[in-house]
């Protein structure tokens, strides 16, 4: 079997975020999908020094799609320091590798292949189980983060990717209310607010809102997206921008798709033309898809009464409101080929750009500044 090598191109600083992931899939993978059939593709991430956790989770959803739906056979080369590098480079790439290990990226990859080593190049089969002592991570080497916060998160295993699917499930839709609520409990019981109050001097009640409110609502929101076989949540520290990042992804029905019926019912009173329309992400324009997704974040989103109104959640509304207004942060939503960013004023329309992705799913990225 022949092999193909494709390189990821991070930013010049070595940063790999959502923008770089979009470019990677659009420019490197999609044009060559047919050519990849019959060969094993090596996806080379070895030049990535800094990861955005949201991009990492969304990458997992993409990899699952390329395996399952596009039928591509691939292996990954992940970043790693070596003796041939300069001291600075070696630190950077060892740190990059250590973050993947600390985040438990292997857990994310287990959604695709139970034996993660089969997804890695042969010289990295023990990537996620290197021998002790590890060259990196020591708290005193981490210069840029708010003092003690990263150490707190790591020592209490709060920086690990959590899988919302039941690994023992056999079937199509293993995302369960039980697993989601278990995650909610795990995070709330850890009192992350105390960490933020103690380490970052954030006022106690505001700090508690992070896990008791933002994180919980983001997790519960996954239940609104049926037909998901993958769901993941993670929190992370962006040291260079001094932000706390919370990311939740799933590969279920998109936000516009799930809200479209309510959108049509509500708008149908004013615009009869929408009645009877069916949602189709491939024929609708970017602005149409964004408008429908934005509708899910608006207050009083339904004018209906009774059980429909009672069940209509306001999770995204609350998430948007508090990410932006209370914390002064940003909310990014990627769904059905659009990327929407809310910042500065939650009542303003979001910045919308194209973010083409052939796979189904949703990404929420909440970033709050730590001062």
């Amino acid at each position: 079997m022949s092999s193909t090598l494709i390189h990821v191109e991070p930013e010049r600083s070595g940063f790999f975020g959502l923008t770089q992931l979009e470019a990677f899939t659009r420019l490197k993978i999609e044009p060559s999908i047919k050519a990849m059939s019959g060969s094993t593709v090596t996806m080379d991430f070895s030049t990535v020094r800094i990861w955005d956790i949201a991009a990492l989770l969304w990458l997992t959803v993409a990899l699952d799609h390329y395996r399952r739906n596009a039928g591509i056979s691939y292996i990954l080369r992940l970043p790693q320091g070596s003796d041939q590098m300069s001291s600075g480079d070696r630190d950077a790439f060892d740190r990059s590798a250590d973050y993947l290990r600390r985040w438990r990226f292997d857990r994310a990859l287990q959604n695709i292949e139970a034996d993660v080593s089969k997804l890695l190049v042969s010289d990295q089969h023990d990537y996620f189980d290197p021998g002790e002592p590890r060259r990196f991570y020591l708290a005193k080497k981490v210069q840029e983060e708010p003092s003690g916060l990263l150490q707190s998160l790591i020592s209490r295993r709060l920086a690990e990717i959590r899988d919302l699917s039941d690994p023992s499930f056999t079937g199509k839709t293993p995302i369960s209310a039980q697993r989601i609520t278990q995650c909610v409990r795990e995070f709330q019981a850890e009192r992350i607010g105390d960490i933020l109050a103690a380490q970052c001097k954030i006022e106690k009640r505001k700090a508690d809102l992070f896990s008791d409110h933002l994180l919980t609502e983001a997790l519960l929101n996954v239940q609104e997206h049926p037909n998901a076989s993958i769901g993941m949540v993670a929190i992370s520290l962006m040291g260079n921008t001094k932000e706390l990042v919370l990311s939740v992804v799933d590969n279920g029905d998109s936000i516009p798709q799930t809200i479209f019926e309510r959108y049509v019912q509500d708008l149908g009173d004013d615009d009869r033309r929408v009645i009877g329309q069916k949602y189709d992400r491939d024929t609708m324009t970017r602005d149409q898809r964004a408008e429908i997704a934005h509708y899910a974040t608006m207050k009083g989103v339904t004018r209906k009464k009774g059980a429909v109104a009672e069940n209509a959640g306001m999770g995204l509304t609350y998430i948007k409101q508090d990410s932006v207004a209370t914390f002064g942060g940003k909310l990014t939503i990627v769904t059905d080929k659009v990327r929407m960013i809310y910042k500065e004023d939650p009542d303003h329309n979001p910045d919308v750009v194209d973010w083409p992705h052939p796979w189904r799913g949703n990404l929420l990225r909440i970033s709050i500044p730590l001062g």
Partner: protein
Amino acid sequence: MPNDFIGAGIVLASVAHSDYERLIKFGIPESERLSWRQTETRESAGFVSLVNELGYEYSTESEVQELYVGIPEESTNLADAFSRFMTNLARDTNRPPDSVNRPQVLILNLMPFYLSVTLLDKIARGIFLKDHDEFLRQFETIVVLLRNIDWLLKSKVFSDATQQGKLVKDVWALDIRCFAAKFHRDSSAPRQIMVTRNAFRAVLDTDINRIYRSLIFETNSYIGHFGLPSSHVRTHYDLSEFIKRDNVWEYLLQCFEELIDNADSLLLIGIGMERGVIQKMGDQLMSLLGERITIIFRQPDIDSEPVIPPNWSVNFHMAIVVTDIICTGTTVDPCIQQLQNDNKQNRLIKIFAIASMQNSPPMLSRVPVRAGVQIRRKFYSPNPDECHLCKIAQPLREVKKAGDFCYLAQGQLTPFDFWEMVTDAHALERDVTDAHGRQLAYRINTQKLVDRYARWLENVIKSRFVGTWPGSKVDVICTVNEPTGAAFTELVKKSLSVSRVVKLGREQLVRCTSTGGLPDGVKNPFKPSDHILVVDDGMNTGNTVSQLIKYCKAAGNIPIGGLVLDSRLDETEMRVLTAKMSRNRLVALYTWPRTGHPIDS
């Protein structure tokens, strides 16, 4: 406020524990139920104090009527569930009490639940907007206990209801962090105050024996033989789970506050293998006390020296070393000595441990050890000639980091494991008649074992299952419908996250024949794709397990295997049973023969 509320009653309404699982499908997570259950040492009067923290003056003689109210299975959504809860509550409250005046205070206890704003939207709709006004009007005061009042403050549903004048009474919300808010029925802005922790301490049952039981019997644990650098120990308890509990944390906080007395600046040094637990303690103490006490918390880097600021005694009135469990003290002692060597201002140095062992030193370098809990076990010398566990050949696990404790050795449950549990739980019964009518010289009361050791046995079950049936999943447990084995079956169900249990009566089992399929008129309880695990608490002769296997096969399924707590069958008898399952495995957590066992002599 006039003193005319003597004798007034308080209704404390909580969701019935048995119905917590029904709330999971609506997105309400597992709860912090253990801290909030009614116990023999929890003071109901504490709830009166809690209400009085809000500015009332109810007498502590007030009768508190505790009601555990059901949530019906047929609830269609969360609002409906809590509306039905209110209906049931109204029904239960209106029953005339034997004594006491008409109740004046309604406390709705949602403290066990980890909620969110969207969940509160729905709960608030069910409680306040579903025609329960007549019931609510009879109370002077309504108090909602929550883990975070900001959920209610941010709830659009509750806010709209308040502004539209739909509340029939003023409503207080009070949370575990001591924040409180009063929502006025005249739709004016909520008033917010803080209360003290005093009432929570009575309400949460911080009795030392309760706390001890919480650690030993209600915390995830491993039992074995663990080799630490300077000692061997028998048990490991998941302290991270332990200190998450509201009552435990309240107790530890109380201990710590007694320790620091009036100090207004503290240096905390965290030492110990359970870095996450110690870090959590440091973060929570800084968060809770940081406004009135200057606290600096340090933990040593991996393999580095402790970080004690030079001339620490100039800047801090007191230094406290915080640790997880003290055995010999050899981990903590060097830090104490370093603090003493640099203590020019002669400040107080103290030690605070979550737990200590029975034979742990009471002092280290002349500093008393204050431990939250004393575990009623001893640590052993690492010298094999002196360690009791080494002498009885209990498999040894070397521990270098906290995760190493989470381990089950090959061969566990060992005889020592099993009989120590049985002895401690008083679970050995003599001269009993079993369900078949046979007279038994001995039988193990598995209910008693499970009552005390469920958390450890859960780990044993998981480990043995994964080792025996790797990559498998159980869809349904098949067992006999008898009370003696119910506790063990429930434990297996929980341990392996099984959703269905099929319980068969003995009369059903005896009707199955080898070739006749299920008896006429009997509905097949299994699906063709079900992976069935046969479970029984114990096997004396194997007859029950044999009948269960036969039933499964009559229904068209071969079980993936069987799991029992203890077995008295020999190898030949075991092979006979496994052959009935096409050689699928039959696992006993412990085997002891019927004859020739020391207990028979």
